[in-house]
């Protein structure tokens, strides 16, 4: 009886609120995924593709948006620790605090890489739970989508059926897309690459890229000229095909190395909106694979 009453109440409440879930996405990739799984949701994206996701400020606008959110969807794994705790605390929104149903971390759904065996700031900006840049492996979106869809259904049971349908459609299309990307990216297997920031282990694991050097001496530390010269020396012994960076990063270190080592500098969109082509999740990976293949030539 109680269950029926509460279900009815939820139904009434959700109808009164016009049923739209108010979703606060920390990064553009999760906003794009949410758009696939809950097209009717009111989705706000807290950060842009051209912003360093480690370095965001707890701006008043973010606090005001978090106050109205029913669900906060973030990468987690400490990627947002410089700003999200303040935003959530100041929002005074009990629904979306860490640990509650309205707080979702994508990193919980995937296997983390580069989990550090020791935690010391002398090693730079390391994250205790592992490398947080999980969105560069397209396969990661499948378990994250399933977990996010389940969470949406839990928060909005009246539309659980619709969420299941959207998930099934997404999974079907996404599997086909992964197969296509993997086929296109076959020539990339075993290709040696340099990365500017330690931000591509998931992409490398997925497509079989072989990372031979990093331009940042420690995670989050800008490379000095002396360090770059050292990387260049490494590349003379161990040549790479291209140097990768994310759209939000300063292009100068990559270009410097690319010129001297005679390799391609490849700027990847990194997330939805990282360039004009990466307008949605599908086109993000279309463009990523296309740019990597172009870097091979």
């Amino acid at each position: 009886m109680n269950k029926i009453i509460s279900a009815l109440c939820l139904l009434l409440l959700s109808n009164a609120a016009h049923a739209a879930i108010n979703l606060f996405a920390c990064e553009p990739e999760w906003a794009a995924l949410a758009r696939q799984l809950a097209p009717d949701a009111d989705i706000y994206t807290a950060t842009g593709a051209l912003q360093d996701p480690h370095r965001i400020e707890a701006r008043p606008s973010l606090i005001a948006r978090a106050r109205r959110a029913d669900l906060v969807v973030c990468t987690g794994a400490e990627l947002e620790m410089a700003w999200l705790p303040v935003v959530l605390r100041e929002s005074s929104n009990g629904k979306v605090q860490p640990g509650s149903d309205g707080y979702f971390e994508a990193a919980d759904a995937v296997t983390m890489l580069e989990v550090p065996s020791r935690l010391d700031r002398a090693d730079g900006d390391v994250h205790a739970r592992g490398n947080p840049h999980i969105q560069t492996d397209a396969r990661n979106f499948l378990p994250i989508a399933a977990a996010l869809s389940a969470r949406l259904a839990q928060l909005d049971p009246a539309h659980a059926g619709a969420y299941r349908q959207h998930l099934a459609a997404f999974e079907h299309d996404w599997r086909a897309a992964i197969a296509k990307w993997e086929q296109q990216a076959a020539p990339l297997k075993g290709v040696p690459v340099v990365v500017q920031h330690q931000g591509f282990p998931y992409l490398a694991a997925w497509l079989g890229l072989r990372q031979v050097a990093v331009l940042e001496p420690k995670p989050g530390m800008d490379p000095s000229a002396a360090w770059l010269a050292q990387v260049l020396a490494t590349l003379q012994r161990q040549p790479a095909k291209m140097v990768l960076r994310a759209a939000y990063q300063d292009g100068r270190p990559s270009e410097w190395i690319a010129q001297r080592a005679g390799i391609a500098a490849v700027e990847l969109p990194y997330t939805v909106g990282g360039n004009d082509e990466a307008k949605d999740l599908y086109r993000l990976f279309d463009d990523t694979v296309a740019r990597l293949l172009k870097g091979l030539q």
Partner: protein
Amino acid sequence: MFDIKRLCALVLLGLASHAQAANEAAFNPAFSLILSGTYASLRQDPATPATGFAMNPNPGHEQGFNIGESEMGISANVDPQFRGVATLALAAAGGVSVENAYVQSTSLGDGLNLKFGRFFSGLGYLNEQHAHAWDFVDQPLVYAALWENQLGEDGVQLKWLAPTELFVELGGEMGKGRGFPGTDRAKNGSGAGVLFLHVGDDIGSEQSWRAGLSLHRTRAVARESSKVPDLHGNTVTDQFTGDSRTAGLDLVWKYAPNGNIKERYLKLQGEYFRRNENGDLSYDTGSGGTNVTDSYAVTQRGWYMQGVYQFMPRWRTALRIDRLDPGSASVGTANATNVIANYAFKPSRTTLMLDYSPSEFSRIRVQLANDQSRQNLSDKQLFVQYIMSLGAHGAHSY
């Protein structure tokens, strides 16, 4: 059969105690430590207050090498309802002072946020910021003279965030009136009250702003100031009893290309405070003094404007302009020939800053100031400072 059961029980017990031990460590609060130090080269005695502000506090500076205060922060959720925060300042000469020690509600909902204990008041923009987050070595003159750098309060704060897309936050505080301009009195009820309103938003993806309005009210009882110059050319001790009302405006605007603060950004901010004090002044209350009491009212004002520019990753430069106006006091007839009513001087200061942050956790800073806050005592000041933070990665507020 019985043995297997016992074995199972032992295994379970062992597992349980193992889990407990692990959890106890995991429940440790977040711990952080700020190490900072300053070298200051000054031409004038830092104990001399700004002209016209001898009855206000003068936090001043320390000359030469000075490790300043090391600040220790501890915070954690208490339970599902509350979060606790303590900040202890370890003074260079020894001794520990409690800077912050408050409890904050975490689950009131509806945009309500309750804080109680000892905290920095939410008035203005800079008041809530801890020293390690300042953009300069010191606070603006208006904060130094009107709030003794920062208004701390023992009391209760209630904030409400409106459910609108525009950030609108309304807050109220009641407290003991512990810090200047209040006087710490033992009495029932509240010794000081604060009201503040904050409004803020983004303009596109590159700009953001916050504006604020603050009101503060307290009553001072026998608030003593020593070394106050008088009309006879002496310095005396005075006492003020009366009402103190302050109104403030603050505005912050930030810009970063593509909204990416890692590379470059510009931050402009300004604050204005106006304080009216109305009551009785007891002139020359020191031992053997004449001790004459009559009415006294004055309106003091001050403002600062500053710009911080991060011109490349890790490097920032800043300029700050400070102004104070001691106002013209109405002094009762009994003290008309004793108390200076009009100093006919407006203190000012111009400050330049350059800092370098090797990482998010360390910062090294050089600061130059042309201090004209004391009449006929022009001061050129040089500061070198380091600020290092260890431990928990504290998220910074806007």
